[in-house]
């Protein structure tokens, strides 16, 4: 049974696209058939983070408008054969994406894939509501920062009221993914702790991704962080998150990036 998952946040720049790519790749590594869809019409970036930017011919809007067929727009990942991308359009006409069209595309994808990951645009406007519209589950990406937590709260409210499931009286299962977490700073009281965030947002925790140079390094080369350096702390955090999504019980650890002396000395030059 296909699952539609939206990766959302409200605030921009918290790591929705990075997380979509990393989670999508990790799911595919576990043998699942996965498609990641970029809903950020006008400002597409998922193709870039996945390293497929030069292979985009048709996009989501083309499919919605009937210019292209779905198989023509789907791009297969070069590294994993069961990972696919449906890119966003760079057209500036955001109204080209209709609710009816999105519904049709998602219904179509449901027959072909196990997981459909929707990378939401930032904000609370139409693009974000369309991305979450047909979601069965939602991952809310949050940084340990006041503006991000506040916007996540708004998004949680929208997930409970504006999705197709909510309107049918059903629930969209919600998961919190905290990114750019620095356990040391949290311990020193310089950063909201996981417990603070969980208490404020009252949403179950899916994973904690540590602040790490590996994340930027992976997006620089256009490779999901879970594939680029599978042993790195963020990759392990994303892999654990995916296993939790699939129902495994895994102890929640705060992953720490190990830094050697040379790393510390060369910190400014790395990444």
């Amino acid at each position, binding site marked *: 049974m296909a699952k539609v998952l939206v990766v959302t946040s409200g605030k921009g720049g918290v790591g929705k696209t990075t997380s979509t790519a990393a989670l999508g790749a990790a799911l595919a590594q576990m043998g699942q058939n996965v498609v990641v869809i970029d809903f950020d019409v006008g400002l597409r970036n998922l193709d870039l983070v996945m390293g497929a930017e030069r292979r985009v011919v048709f996009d989501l809007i083309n499919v919605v408008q009937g210019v292209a067929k779905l198989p023509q727009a789907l791009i297969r990942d070069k590294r994993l054969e069961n990972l696919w991308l449906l890119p966003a359009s760079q057209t500036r006409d955001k109204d080209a994406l209709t609710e009816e069209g999105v519904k049709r595309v998602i219904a179509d994808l449901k027959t072909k894939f196990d997981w459909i990951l929707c990378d939401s645009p930032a904000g609370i406007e139409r693009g974000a509501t369309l991305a979450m519209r047909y979601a069965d589950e939602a991952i809310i990406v949050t940084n340990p*920062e*006041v503006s991000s*937590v*506040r916007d996540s*709260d*708004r998004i949680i*409210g929208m997930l409970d009221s504006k999705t197709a499931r909510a309107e049918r009286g059903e629930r969209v299962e919600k998961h919190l993914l905290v990114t750019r977490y620095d356990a040391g700073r*949290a311990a*020193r*009281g*310089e*950063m*909201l*702790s996981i417990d*603070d965030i969980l208490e*404020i947002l009252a949403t179950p925790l899916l994973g904690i991704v540590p602040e790490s140079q590996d994340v930027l390094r992976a997006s620089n080369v256009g490779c999901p962080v879970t594939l680029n350096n599978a042993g790195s702390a963020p990759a392990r955090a994303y892999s654990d998150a995916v296993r939790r999504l699939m129902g495994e019980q895994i102890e929640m650890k705060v992953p720490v990036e190990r830094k050697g002396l040379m790393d510390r000395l060369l910190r400014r030059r790395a990444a």
Partner: protein
Amino acid sequence: MNLMRLFGGRAGSAPVARERLQILLAHERGRSGAPDLLETLRSEILSVVSKHVDLDPDKIVIRMDRGKFVSMLEVDIEVPNGVQRSKMVAAS
């Protein structure tokens, strides 16, 4: 600055962040949680009170704070002095 922090010169800012968020979200959840309910309450309270007192519709603030165990409905109505149409009705 780092040295000062090392010697315990300054407490972390996270507790402040946490407190600010809790206060802010308590207000915002009331507002966005059930916009229809609050708008209905607002217009009905407005119509009842304005039967007896001249009111500026903008001077009515209705807010709902949702707590874990108890929710609070706060109605704040500013009544201008000396323009009562009939006898004043206490409304709060």
